[in-house]
């Protein structure tokens, strides 16, 4: 049976269509979820896509975390549902306290879009099990507020528990502490990532096909997961 992966659209979501395309290319069925509807439609996993939910005129993700869909999603995530937050989705996961820390304005104060090299540090998560530990991948980064910050104790705990999922290499595009590009929760089912793997799934439009691994990982995870 084809896995069904939900992609949430908030007002102001921008990369929702791209996330759905990546899910499709990975071999799963994308299911559109609406911010105002708490029904997750029985999906097997959820992607919170990039964009500027509600304009992000307030702190990024601060309003989205109160959307009706998030009420059920937070509970489902705590129950083990695989959730990937990309860019704005990462910001929303932090605001919803599914992940620790926060994403703040890029240190250089500019929006930055470039092809970025990452090192995959944790391959035990629902979204990175298709990679090799230490594998380097190339995916686009594009954000204005992607600087990951947390207090030292939290950072040490993330490092100690192997929850830093990916790090920037060959240059840190936004000033993130300890070059952190992606982190996960203790259970490994919730991952937040600032760069955009959904934009590296086609040779014609992306800098590589490296992003596909995030989406095939969750399919692998679902096959192995208890029903």
């Amino acid at each position, binding site marked *: 049976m084809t896995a069904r992966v939900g992609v949430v659209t908030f*007002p*102001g979501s*921008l*990369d929702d*269509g*791209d996330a759905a*395309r990546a899910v499709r290319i990975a071999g799963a069925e994308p299911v559109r979820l609406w911010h*105002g509807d708490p029904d997750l439609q029985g999906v097997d996993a959820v992607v919170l896509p*990039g*964009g*500027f939910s*509600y*304009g*992000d*005129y*307030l702190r990024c993700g601060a*309003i989205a975390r109160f959307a009706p869909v998030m009420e059920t999603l937070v509970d489902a995530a705590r129950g083990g549902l695989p959730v990937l937050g990309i860019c704005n989705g990462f910001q929303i996961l932090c605001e919803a306290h599914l992940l620790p820390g926060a994403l703040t*304005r890029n*240190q*250089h*104060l*500019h*929006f*930055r*879009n*470039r092809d970025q090299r990452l090192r995959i540090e944790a391959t035990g998560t629902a979204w990175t099990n298709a990679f090799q530990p230490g594998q380097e991948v190339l995916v*686009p980064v*594009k954000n*204005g507020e992607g600087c990951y910050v947390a207090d030292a104790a939290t950072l040490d705990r993330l490092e100690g528990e192997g929850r830093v999922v990916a790090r920037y290499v060959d*240059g*840190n595009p*936004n*000033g993130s502490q300890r070059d952190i590009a992606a982190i996960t929760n203790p259970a490994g089912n919730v991952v937040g990532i600032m760069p*955009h793997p*959904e*934009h590296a799934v*086609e040779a*014609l*439009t*992306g800098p590589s096909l490296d992003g596909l691994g995030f989406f095939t990982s969750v399919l692998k995870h679902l096959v192995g997961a208890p029903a």
Partner: protein
Amino acid sequence: MTTHPDPAVRPTPGDSPAVPFAAPVASQPGPVDPDRPGAEPARHPDQARHAQSAPAGDWAHGLDTVPRAVETPDELQPYAELGLRDDEYDRIRHILGRRPTQAELAMYSIMWSEHCSYKSSKVHLRQFGEKAPPSDRLLAGIGENAGVVRVSDELAVTFKVESHNHPSFVEPYQGAATGVGGIVRDILAMGARPVAVMDPLRFGAADHPDTGRVLPGVVAGVGGYGNCLGLPNIGGEVVFDPCYQGNPLVNALCLGVLPVDRLQKKEATGPGNVVVLMGARTGRDGIGGVSVLASATFDEGSEQRRPSVQVGDPFMEKLLIEACLELYEAELVVGIQDLGGAGLTCALTETAASAGTGMRVWLERVPLREASMEPQEILASESQERMLLVVAPDKLEAVLKTAEKWGVWATAIGEVTAPSPDGRPGRLVVTWRDQLVVDVPPGSLVDDGPVYARPMREPADLILLQADRAETLPRPSTPEALRETVLRMIASPNLADKGWVTEQYDRYVLGNTVLAQPEDAGVIRIDERTGLGVALSLDGNGRYARLDPYHGTRLALAEAYRNVAVTGAKPIAVTNCLNFGSPEDPGVMWQFAEAVRGLADGCQELGIPVTGGNVSFYNQTGAAAIHPTPVVGVLGVLDDVAARVPMGFVPRPAGEHDQLFLLGETHVELSGSEWAWVTHEHLGGIPPQVDLGRERQLAELLAEAGRVGHLSSAHDLSDGGLAQGLVESCLRRGVGAVVAVPEQFAGGSMPFVFLFSESAGRVLVSVPRGHEKAFTALCAAHGVPWEAIGITDPAGGALEVHGQFRIGLDELRAAHTATLPRLFGNSELAEADAPVAQASAPVADADAPGGQADALVAQADADVDAPVTQADAAVAVVDAPVAQAAPVADAGFPGARDAAAAVPVTDEGEQATPGAPEAADALAPVDAPAPVDAPVTGQPTEAERAAEPAEAGPGDARPDQR
């Protein structure tokens, strides 16, 4: 229950009782809708309260109604201050048979302005239609919001470029942001989903302090709006020239895609249909002349009416896009028009005039940001993110539901009325709380505006300028000098890498970007099933146009055409943005006429039609006009984007390489070139020759060669010549090249000519091994001259010109990429400024004061009767270098910015120039505080709650971007 306004009732002075100022529109219908219990024109619950809360007293004695206009024919009106001439005012009185009301005068003044009426350009622009080659692809052309071109049986694309020049000088961030927003709505109004943007930008000298204020703000504004809207930015230009000091050019293009059967019309057809205003609420932004009308004559005590640059809310625009597309999909609208320049006035009159119908509007139903707004302000406001819909009554409920789903305001403000029984078009009738304030034939505002054949004269200095040819300048003739010239040229601001700018734009969103800057053209896939795509390029060269506006414009067309062709696309349509000085200057008018003639002739020769465009006059500071700057956009179609040809040389396994060919002919053509400007600060002579027949042959060759796989890369040669093309193709993917200077360019300074001539009609291509013979045969078949000039050198890591120089790619890259970060702030983290940059900075600054002082003098001269605020801005500019010295990333010049922001602009800011009549109105000193939204009380809906932060404006939420 939702109902719509009543067609039968038209108020007359007699049946309007004392005005119930606090009458809530929704629940207490006044005499205008006598039998309308439960009428619900607005979806949003606080609208009625909003109307109730409006202060009642201010205009109780002063509202200028139609009856009052009839009774007081001799009342003095400030038409001259609004930019109307005596004869234009007389004409309005003749049309109406009385004096216009305040609101009518405001409407005529903006609709008959240069910006809306094209009164100076119309007589010339006709050529685009008259000389247009026949095209069965054109679904909508000039006169529509944007041209629409069919690209397959099912799909069409629409594209257009517009200017937002003056607002971007006054307030770079918001000026540029709303420029993007405006053009996106034009595209949306055609029924298309916007899919990409591009932005040709022109600034003053790169090292001028004020460029350090304007450029970062403009770039952040273009990015801030486009990124938040989810539109990939796929190309554009960044050009520096002192002629744009004080008058930057911020042009914005949007591309949209639609099914051919979803094309929308702007006609307000069907009497009885409801007129719905959807999107943001209306505020006092961008009112311009109307405020002056109010404050100068009618209400001198009021300080609230400040004209200003509009403030953009990209989130609202994103919601508006999604809501409109859902309406189109469900076939819920009869007609639609965006609100841009001239706001509601333009939308109401154009929709009615194009259908020949009339319209009845209840103006108090318009949702307002500021309750105290007067009728003429509401009619003239240029608040962003609004659309006007014409909806059948039985579809209204569904339209309002869709708007509510997306959280945008939608309000029935009026209805379409029938033409008069005798066959004359209907009238636009607007009431304000039951008082008749506007009663005009809509066509008189749209079509019957003045048209001028302004005097034209070739600029007196042109002959001398053309005689001063750059071909006589001393040229480098030794290998060392040539090497140094290459490094200097690729580091010069106009030729340097623009990554500092383009990395601030999202080029990936929507997942269909196949090519984007720095490629020659942007390529977007528009059909994932078939791979169908389009290529777009925008080009202009003000120096060429200054030397010869006719040929300069043809060169811009040729370059855009060639940039599209090198990707393998077939060029099919043209748009343009014509940036010029004051049309009242006969020299400028001559330049304009020559440019239009050149573009119309050129398009005729190339066999592709102009589908639309934009004219921006009054781009000058004092008496000094900018270089005439026609920016030409060409759209091409690619049947399968997988066959697109990129510009970069291709990495190959060890021992393999591609063959390099130079297509076209190289002549000694250096006048107007980048080299002449950079090394000699020289502008003179005659620009390169352009042969459009040859451009056409070249394009056909490239399309076929690309399709059959003969090309691994193709790169247009223009500014900076072959040297620039080689460097860019090498650096794109880090692949070196070895080039031999052909025999005919041997000796003396001829190798320099080979590398730096800017002859048109040339392309640098790389051809994979085994394809050379077939490719050269194809060249011969198409009549395109070719020359084998070398090979790519994937393992070499350098660009070598045999017998002349060898420069490592690292050295090339360092020179090419350091310039913009040095000028505008290094955005890399944890890296100190390179010592080289610091060393050279004082030199650049040392040049600045002189030029700056000149600019200030020019400004001061122009503004003999200019207000204090203008002088303040100038003072702030003087202070700017201090701010620049501060070692803060993106420090900008807060002082300069704030002072500049206080300079008011008119609604047609891009045309307002100190000294020009239209502008004079706008320069009244204003010291009012920033707009504050009327508080909204009650229980907001979820969508409103979400939208509330937006009301504060992005600038407030992100003060660092101001």
